[in-house]
């Protein structure tokens, strides 16, 4: 009898427990999926690559599936943290495939909690916008633009933090 009671108590516990857990998980997924992405085609993105506001703009093209991009993201975050007050504005342009937004990009953004502004470029007509962004860009990522007013440099390469900081500082002087 005692044992039966124990069993009932145990069962009621587990019954109480499991729906809560499921609910919690669903909520978590909901918050990830409800994360709003700024998605642009090239015409929408273009003004962000040509701001005339006296600030130094660092624009990095990346994707969650691009290992060297993910590796250098913390350096861009660090520049953003340390130079934001010195008139440096960071923009991370994700080239993730739209069908991967929910599955890969949103969970990634949630997990990494990036402080820099992240936008998505969804424009299949790459042959139009790649040369428009820079005539020398072959299309490989990571790729980065640093500009201030009309002064502009394009980099089709990976950065170390020191390299990136040196480049940014050239624009600050």
């Amino acid at each position: 009898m005692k044992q039966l009671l124990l069993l009932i108590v145990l069962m009621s516990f587990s019954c109480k427990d499991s729906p809560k857990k499921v609910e919690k998980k669903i909520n978590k997924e909901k918050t990830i999926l409800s994360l709003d992405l700024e998605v642009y085609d090239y015409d929408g993105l273009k003004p962000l690559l040509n701001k005339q506001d006296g600030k130094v703009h660092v624009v990095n093209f990346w994707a969650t599936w691009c290992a060297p991009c993910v590796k250098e993201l913390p350096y861009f975050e660090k520049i953003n943290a340390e130079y934001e007050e010195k008139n440096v504005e960071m923009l991370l342009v994700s080239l993730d495939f739209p069908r991967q937004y929910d599955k890969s990009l949103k969970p990634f953004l949630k997990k990494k909690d990036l402080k820099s502004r992240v936008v998505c470029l969804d424009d299949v007509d790459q042959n139009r916008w790649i040369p428009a962004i820079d005539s020398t860009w072959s299309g490989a990522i990571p790729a980065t633009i640093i500009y201030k007013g009309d002064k502009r440099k394009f980099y089709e390469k990976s950065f170390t933090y020191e390299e990136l900081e040196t480049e940014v500082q050239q624009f600050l002087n």
Partner: protein
Amino acid sequence: MKTLKLLAAFVCFIGLTAFTVTTDSGYKVGDVATDFSLENIDGKMVSLSDYKSAKGFIVIFTCNTCPYAVAYEDRIVALDKKYASKGYPVIAIMPNDTDVKPGDNMQAMQARAKAKGFTFPYLMDKGQKIYPQYGATKTPHVYILEKSDKGNIVQYIGAIDDNYQDASLVKTKYAENAVDALLAGKEVAQKTTRAIGCSIKTK
């Protein structure tokens, strides 16, 4: 004075060559492409010169691990099926350093080729000697070569088509148009195009 002039000329020359080196990496349309001897997934060595009856080649630098390359796999198979019999076979070359990208090693290449039913050689650029000569920077990166008396002439460099996301929404098939023009004895209308790809992995 004379030495100064000479020095100026020398500096100028150095400057010029330095400049040429940086901007002249890889082939441009019209250049003669190098042949190679690279290991295929079946263990045999493959060279362009093995293809006696070919009129040219669709050389594609591609790999297992890049989502853009994966998105194009079926279309690369379709290209080979359509054009190999017409004299333009696909030659796929995997350019990544496999220590950096183990997912592109020989076993992985064999598995991928089997799973996708590759009808063309899938070669390993072991030592990464070939892709820099072509000037490939990413996967996928296409070079269409036309066989001539002078060698294999580069006639097209760039993307396969204009929609990496959805083959059914492609408007312009750049690579097919280029091969069609060459087969018809015409000049390729659009000789270079650009597309996003994964940078080729090196140590």
